[in-house]
């Protein structure tokens, strides 16, 4: 174990911030200290290891996502471009406070409705859709999560369980609309409801749910879970590309932890 002063001296030199005098002092010390030479080699290894980690690529569609988020926050139509100063004045603090207050009341009413059954989810074959953000930040209890890239479209999915209900939330990002098919063993899962932030056509059978032409947005599918271990197989077609994979059951995820 070398002292803090020499540890800092080695790091200064490796960092390229040392003065000529510091470099000479280190060299002189290293000639007499095998422990110091070992420590210098360790730190060189650490610097090199960190240097080998590459920069990740910018996620596809980031710019478009930012633009969309700004539009959504401004509440302006898609053709308006980014938020304008006028829009910023209109969406000033008092308006936002009122909006948040109203949104809170609405969310409370919807939550109460969902709990009491006053606002039932969309039944199979139903045409109505709820509009809003449904993608949760994270499942509160064990959950599985996957992401796929089909051409220019990215699809993220996560599954978690609430009581006997398995919820699968899907987020679609990118310009090309996607056909998303979820298939499953009907002995283990029974589809119950689909909620969509942007309306698109969906088909529901006993062993599959298909969303046709899903635009950028989010949707959730609720299943009655008869067997906890059944995965959902997801197949995505977008922009001429096709990918597929499985979304593990929350139970399977919990076992792996």
């Amino acid at each position, binding site marked *: 174990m070398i002292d803090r002063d020499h540890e800092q001296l080695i790091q200064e030199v490796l960092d390229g911030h040392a003065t000529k005098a510091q470099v000479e002092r280190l060299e002189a010390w290293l000639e007499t200290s095998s422990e110091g030479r070992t420590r210098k080699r360790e730190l060189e290894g650490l610097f090199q290891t960190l240097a080998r980690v590459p920069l990740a690529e910018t996620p596809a569609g980031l710019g478009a996502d930012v633009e969309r988020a700004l539009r959504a926050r401004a509440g302006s139509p898609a053709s308006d471009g980014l*938020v304008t100063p006028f829009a910023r004045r209109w969406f000033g603090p008092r308006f936002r406070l009122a909006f948040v207050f109203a949104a809170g009341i609405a969310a409370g009413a919807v939550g109460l409705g969902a709990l009491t059954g006053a606002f039932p989810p969309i039944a199979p074959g139903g045409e109505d859709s709820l509009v809003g953000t449904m993608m949760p930040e994270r499942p509160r209890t064990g959950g599985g999560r996957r992401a*796929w890239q089909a051409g220019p479209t990215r699809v993220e999915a996560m599954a978690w369980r609430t009581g006997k209900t398995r919820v699968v939330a899907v987020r679609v990002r990118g310009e090309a609309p996607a056909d998303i098919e979820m298939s499953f063993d009907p002995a283990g899962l029974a589809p119950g409801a689909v909620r969509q932030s942007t309306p698109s056509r969906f088909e529901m059978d006993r062993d599959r749910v298909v969303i046709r032409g899903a635009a950028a947005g989010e949707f959730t599918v609720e299943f009655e879970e008869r067997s906890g271990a059944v995965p959902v197989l997801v197949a995505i077609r977008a922009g001429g590309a096709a990918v597929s994979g499985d979304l593990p059951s929350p139970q399977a995820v919990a076992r792996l932890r």
Partner: protein
Amino acid sequence: MAAARARDPKAFAALVEAYGRVVFNLALRMTGHHEDARDVTQNVFVKAYEKLDTFDGRSRFFSWIYRIAINESLNLLARRKRMVALDEELVSDEQSPHRGAEAREEERMVQAALLDLTAEYRQVIVLRHFLDLSHVEMGQVLRLPEKTVKSRLHTARVRLGEALRKRGYAPR
């Protein structure tokens, strides 16, 4: 920059283009999760757009936006603390599929060790070794004296080395 502050959409899009990758990498190393990093990056630019008026131009733009990125990452990590962590292994790894298994394993190990550090140590490692900022620039981002930055960085490297060794990895 002036055009972006005047809410010119093209100028702001150019800022996203110019800083998107670095901000994303900062968020990725701070959070350790690709999708979280993407969300953080998006939030950073939304906040930057909304707060461009408060950027006084005396400091450099990168230090301003990196500071927002660090704060957003820390906010996300604080929220995540209250939740059950997902098994990161289950997230499909689509990053750099052409890289060798050994390089990917090394990167995974480094990321795991980074997450073992406290946020204050992790952020100095990220700024110095992944964003290549000087001590002075780091001080501007973190609003800390250079001396404090250096001291924190020294300790962070010691801790990172220990975290790697605990995971059975010897830096080479």
